[in-house]
């Protein structure tokens, strides 16, 4: 600290008090944020005979994975479904988004900006406004109630956000590089493969994380488009578990943790990219 920052003792102590207060408030808010996590973890680690409502805030006596075993019995198939759903949907979304973003940033044509706005609107609509036609269409396509059907739906309704992120990302790639490619005789795909794609890895990471997280966490489409319990994604299974008056809270909490874990891991290890996707969805660059 420089001398200028400490003109007199009273001001210095005021600053120190303010800092302390700030920390106190921030810690209090952090506790508010971690409270449900604490409850989730301690409850799911309790064995069945330890689950008592009056001791719900107490730490478990010894760690038991009974509740996870039971939750897996009920939700394991759904967990696998979600994995089978999220991987192809994310990969296809990324490729489509990258291609669209490339066209809309480097191969603009008259009306392409208007088209982009029209595409973008698709990401804000309440999906209730498309559900009935969607179900009817998927039925005629023989995709209703199937995982490929859900993949299709997530890919289509993912087009706006993936296109947006890639378009803004590619806007940062100097047009001169594309021009240079043209002069070198590269065509549309040549420029994509040799210039754009190699620069796209961070963009792919952001979009993949975004799509993975939102598809994994999605509920409404899963609820409407799957009818058979064995085809449900994991969010629907969890909601079912909690809605079925299942009084065994440890199983519910273990189920919730199971659903939370994949996206939480992504957040913990790739949080920086997650944040970028988050902000890209709101701030058009």
């Amino acid at each position, binding site marked *: 600290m420089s001398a200028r920052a400490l003109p007199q003792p009273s001001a210095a102590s005021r600053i120190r008090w303010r800092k302390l207060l*700030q920390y106190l*408030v*921030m810690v209090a808010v952090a506790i508010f*944020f971690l*409270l*449900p*996590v604490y*409850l989730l973890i301690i409850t799911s680690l309790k064995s069945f005979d330890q689950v008592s409502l*009056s001791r*719900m805030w107490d730490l478990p006596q010894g760690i038991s994975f009974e509740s996870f075993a039971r939750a897996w019995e009920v939700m394991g198939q759904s967990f696998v479904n979600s994995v089978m759903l999220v991987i192809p949907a994310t990969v296809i979304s990324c490729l*489509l988004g990258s*291609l*669209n973003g490339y*066209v809309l940033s480097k*191969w603009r*044509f008259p009306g392409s900006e208007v*088209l982009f706005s029209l*595409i973008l609107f*698709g990401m*804000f*609509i*309440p*999906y*209730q*406004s*498309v559900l*009935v*036609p969607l179900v009817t*269409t998927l039925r005629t396509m023989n995709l209703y109630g199937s995982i490929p059907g859900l993949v299709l739906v997530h890919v289509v*309704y993912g*087009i*706006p956000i993936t*296109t947006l992120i890639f378009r803004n990302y590619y806007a940062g790639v100097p047009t001169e590089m594309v021009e240079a490619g*043209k002069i070198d005789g590269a*065509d*549309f*795909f040549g420029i994509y493969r040799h210039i754009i794609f190699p620069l796209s890895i961070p963009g792919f990471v952001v979009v993949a994380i975004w799509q993975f*997280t939102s598809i994994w*966490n999605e*509920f409404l489409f899963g*609820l409407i488009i799957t009818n058979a319990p064995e085809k449900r994604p994991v*969010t629907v299974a*969890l*909601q079912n578990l*909690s*809605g079925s008056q299942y009084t065994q809270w440890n199983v519910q*909490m273990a*189920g*919730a943790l199971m*659903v*939370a874990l994949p996206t*939480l891991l*992504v*957040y913990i290890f790739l949080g920086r990219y*997650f944040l970028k996707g*988050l902000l890209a*969805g*709101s*701030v*058009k660059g």
Partner: protein
Amino acid sequence: MQQAKTIPSPQAERRPGWINRDRITAMLMIAPSILAIAIFVYGFIAWTGFVSLTAWNGILPDYTFVGFENYFDVFNTGRFQTNIRNLLVFTVFFLLTCLVMGLGLAVMVDSVGKGESIFRSIYIFPMSLSFIVTGVAWAWLFTPGNFPEDPTGLNLLFHRMGLDFLQAGWITDASVWPDWRPPGLKTKLLIPLALIPVVVAAVWQMVGFTMAMYLAGLRSIPDEIREAARVDGASEWQVFRKITLPMLQPVTLSAVIILGHISLKIFDLIMTMTGGGPGNNTEIPGVLMYELTFKANKVAQGAAIAMVLLVLVALLIVPYLYYQFKNEVER
């Protein structure tokens, strides 16, 4: 690369006019996406709009045209009026809390120094969770139990801390404050108390996002501007009021649009935490549409509600997109 040799032929082939092979390839490449959006977004919306004007309120499709009858029917029910009340109350509380708390947290995180990244990570992590997970966890926290003697969840925590006066019925409380039924309305105003816990859970999940937006905004304000004001003798509060806050206005606008449309579309959280109850005190149009369409076979009425929801979202989003788009063209 042998530039000199490769330039002439392909260039000559591609240059003339606006249309060339690459541009056609580009348009062909984006065509499937445009087609998909045209059908799955615009086509389906038109389809739903059409269904909302028909008599399809049974198991089998019935495309008899009935005009706006479904809209009138729906608006005339106390249930839908209650839904709209809930949606507006939820949106106002959710938006205001997220904005104020998000800005507060952003300012604190921005200036805290030590521990910044830990605090930031803690405030943002719920964003990575599903609303269903959030709902399951918070529903349990807000399960009141037989309070005050035999409480559960937060009530129990309050009891242990000697804060018994904080105990409440939370998601089971069916009362409405101030319990006022205006003439002509079939619902009571104004605030259904059971909605408050849902707002808390939604804020828990989304305030980190608001904070991240404000944080990015704060970091984009050049330090020199604030420094100059300080040199001119402005207090920290004045700097915040007169410089920081106005410069954050675009962020606030974006946040209002994004959070507002999320709030209008909220569905998962309500389904998991309360299922719309007690009574219809936390039900919102998105849930009612689901119930009517997929549980009660009132497809046309459900479609009418979906269209109302769409119009509400469009009122918020279209001007925003238009404004963003216009700015971009001018740039």
